[in-house]
């Protein structure tokens, strides 16, 4: 959208501009439910407009006509039981009229039975994890916008902060059920085009569903304050036709199974220090730096520093270091990364942390060491 000059502001406020200008109003969305929700929204909006025009109209009429400067004598009345009963009853009836469609829409929205596809959605600081039920497909979905765009060094792309590395893929025309939960704090999974917003509560599972009409790319983001990078955990959903979806899920499943087998074979392979450091730096910056910071200094009082820390720089703590990265720290923001990264990546990142920023331990960790720690 082009920048609108300030003088256009009153125009933007008018109801007609509201219904046409997509970017200023609620989306109609791409599901039956989202269209019902939109209709409900517009109905209530218009009712409010009518009431507003009547009430404010009377008020302004009174302000103009019943002014002291016009030499008016004030009237004496200060009660009228009939009028008072009337303006208690009429709003009540209007509200009943609004509650009826709201009730039926709500009941439809909460009916998660008979789903064709079920996907578990897990929020964690600050990414989403998707796991397809009955298929061996699961992956993390993280913000794909470059840090340089956020810090204003590069120009911002069209989908700034609304793009991810691995979008969720779902079929159109089928009932897709989401089981929403969290690994740490409360998040909220929201895609406006589906009218689905469901909190991800740690330790509990919430249900939501959608049935998308048209193929397309739909974007949303986390809606519940979840810490520092709450503004940086978008959601992207690609809806494909059932045929394309079937093709995609088969390919992805095959790829993921093959990748897992390859990981097992790679366990015996040793990587060189340079390889570990290069891979480790990449993983560190994408996964760890949000909290521990690119320079390893952490954020005092919130996220501990790694540079010069006893765990990351003292040889006797190597096992403990691996254990923390693999299993996380109970009761803290440190997650368990065993499921999030491959063993090679885990080995590389631990090696990197033990040799970067002056932690020159010279120690290397290999995938086999990580495997041992996981299987302990």
């Amino acid at each position, binding site marked *: 959208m082009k920048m609108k000059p300030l003088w256009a*502001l009153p125009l933007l406020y008018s109801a007609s501009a509201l219904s046409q200008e997509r970017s200023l109003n609620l989306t109609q969305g791409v599901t039956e439910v989202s269209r019902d929700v939109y209709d409900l929204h517009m109905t209530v909006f218009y009712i409010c407009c009518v009431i507003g025009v009547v009430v404010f109209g009377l008020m302004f009429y009174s302000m103009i006509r019943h002014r002291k400067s016009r030499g008016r004598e004030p*009237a004496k009345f200060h009660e009228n039981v009939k009028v008072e009963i009337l303006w208690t009853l009429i709003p009540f009836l209007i509200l009943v009229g609004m509650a009826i469609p709201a*009730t039926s829409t709500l009941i439809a929205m909460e009916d998660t039975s008979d789903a064709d596809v079920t996907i578990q959605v897990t929020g964690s600081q600050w990414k989403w994890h998707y796991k397809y039920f009955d298929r061996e497909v699961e992956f993390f979905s993280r913000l794909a916008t470059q840090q340089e765009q956020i810090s204003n060094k590069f120009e911002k792309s069209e989908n700034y902060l*609304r793009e991810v590395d691995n979008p969720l893929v779902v079929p159109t025309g089928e009932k897709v059920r989401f089981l929403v939960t969290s690994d740490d704090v409360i998040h*909220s999974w929201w895609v406006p085009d589906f009218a689905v917003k469901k*909190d991800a*509560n*740690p*330790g509990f599972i919430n249900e939501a569903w959608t049935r998308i009409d048209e193929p397309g790319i739909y974007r949303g983001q986390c809606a519940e304050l979840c810490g520092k990078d709450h503004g940086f955990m978008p959601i992207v959903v690609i809806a494909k036709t059932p045929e394309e979806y079937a093709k995609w899920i088969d390919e992805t499943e095959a790829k993921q199974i093959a990748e897992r087998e390859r990981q097992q074979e790679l366990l015996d392979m040793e990587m060189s220090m340079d390889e570990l450091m290069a891979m480790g730096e990449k993983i560190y910056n994408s996964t760890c730096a949000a909290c521990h910071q690119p320079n390893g200094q952490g954020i005092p009082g919130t996220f501990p520093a790694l540079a010069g820390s006893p765990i990351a720089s003292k040889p006797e703590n190597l096992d403990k270091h691996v254990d923390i990265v693999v299993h996380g720290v109970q009761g803290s923001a440190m997650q368990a990364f065993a499921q999030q990264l491959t063993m090679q990546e885990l080995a590389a990142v631990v090696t990197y942390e033990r040799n970067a920023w002056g932690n020159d331990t010279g120690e290397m960790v290999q995938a086999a060491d990580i495997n041992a720690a996981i299987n302990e």
Partner: protein
Amino acid sequence: MSTVVDDHNHEAHHDHKPSGITRWLFTTNHKDIGSMYLWFSLIMFFVGGAMAMVIRAELFQPGLQLVEPQFFNQMTTVHGLVMIFGAVMPAFTGLANWMVPMMIGAPDMALPRMNNWSFWILPFAFVILLSSLFMEGGGPDFGWTFYAPLSTTYSNDSTALFVFAVHIMGISSIMGAINVIVTIINMRAPGMTYMKMPLFVWTWLITAFLLIAVMPVLAGAVTMVLTDKYFGTSFFDAAGGGDPVMFQHIFWFFGHPEVYIMILPSFGIVSAIIPAFSRKKLFGYSSMVYATASIAILSFLVWAHHMFTTGMPVFAELFFMYCTMLIAVPTGVKVFNWVATMWRGAISFEVPMLFALAFVILFTIGGFSGVMLAMTPVDFQYHDTYFVVAHFHYVLVTGAIFSIMAASYYWLPKWSGHMYDTTLARLHFWSSLISVNVLFFPMHFAGLAGMPRRIPDYAVQFADINQITSIGGFAFGLSQLIFLWLVIKCARGGEKAPAKPWDGAEGLEWTVPSPAPYHTFETPPKVE
């Protein structure tokens, strides 16, 4: 309450008060304490406002320019806490201290020493809260609603300070509320029956009961956060058998009555000002009282409308939706009563009236978005977006704060003994009115278009709306400096105010000279 027999309150034999700082430290005088509350809330209004300026400056453009996300979260959190507990609530307590005894013909508050204490612990609470911003790791950053487990397992070390600051604020509020209730029940002048009390007294009486009912709930919530974080309990941790959603139930059981605590006294103020400048008796006095009481009762039955997305059973969602929509009925009655009061009156537009009229219109707009938010299916779309931010700023800024401004302009001559500079006051009104709408109205659109709240950076399609919003924000912030200047000017001098500067005003407070003598109604007036 129109005819009043009152032949005392003449200076001569009293006004013995210590001078210097000890006067303010040890005072048990309701007027001194009222003034301290009001000055304190004005200072907090600017502290919280400065944080809002930081927020709007960062959101002026997409991208991170001025602050880190973590600091941004601290600003949104502390802005909310300071404005609610530091600006709005103390301002109403200050107004109650000044006006309730004078309105019911009492010589002072019923419990004057507790009154002193309830004020003087407040600055300490805010020193604790604000100093936590300078700690290693920063201040509270989990939103003013401090949802667990973000505020427990995942919070920084300032949480303990936050918890104790909230405890002290709560104790202060409870003591203030007890004082208001005891004063109103026991110290009304002869003839001042309940149904003759000014509506400001009525609304504050009901507010005080709400405060006593819910502040202990807040105290419980923060204590559970404290023990979860530091002492290994698991009230809100599923791993130990707790439930993070239970936190939200407890919090909003406090939080929803809390919003009415911040608006009911406004209804009382506006119900005093509109009749005064319409020169006509308030329409439907008794229905106003009943409407206030119904709103207060309903406020305990609607808390979970803040939590529709947490995954409640359909039955619960329906129950809370219906109850919430029901609140529109008594609130509507109030608005209709105000319009009917103006109807065929003789209206003039002095500054208190301007703010009161702006209150009625803009608060009603906040009420409309409130009805929209009440509808559960649509709330799924609005929830946690800027639509909600727009909604609660319409009811709290153009609602609560505009009513406090109206009250200040209405009673300032009584407090200071001077008329204020009306040119400045009109400038303050018009610049506030325009800027506040440029600030908050576009937020509706940002929210509908899909911008979540509490984010330091946003997608490019929200850029225009945020820029307009920020410009409005800066203008609104600057406009309040006019108010500060006006109040200081008025306190220092000005045209002498008569006992009753507004010809249509009614009530006992206008029977005493301006400024109100240090002691008033030592012998109760007789109300007929």
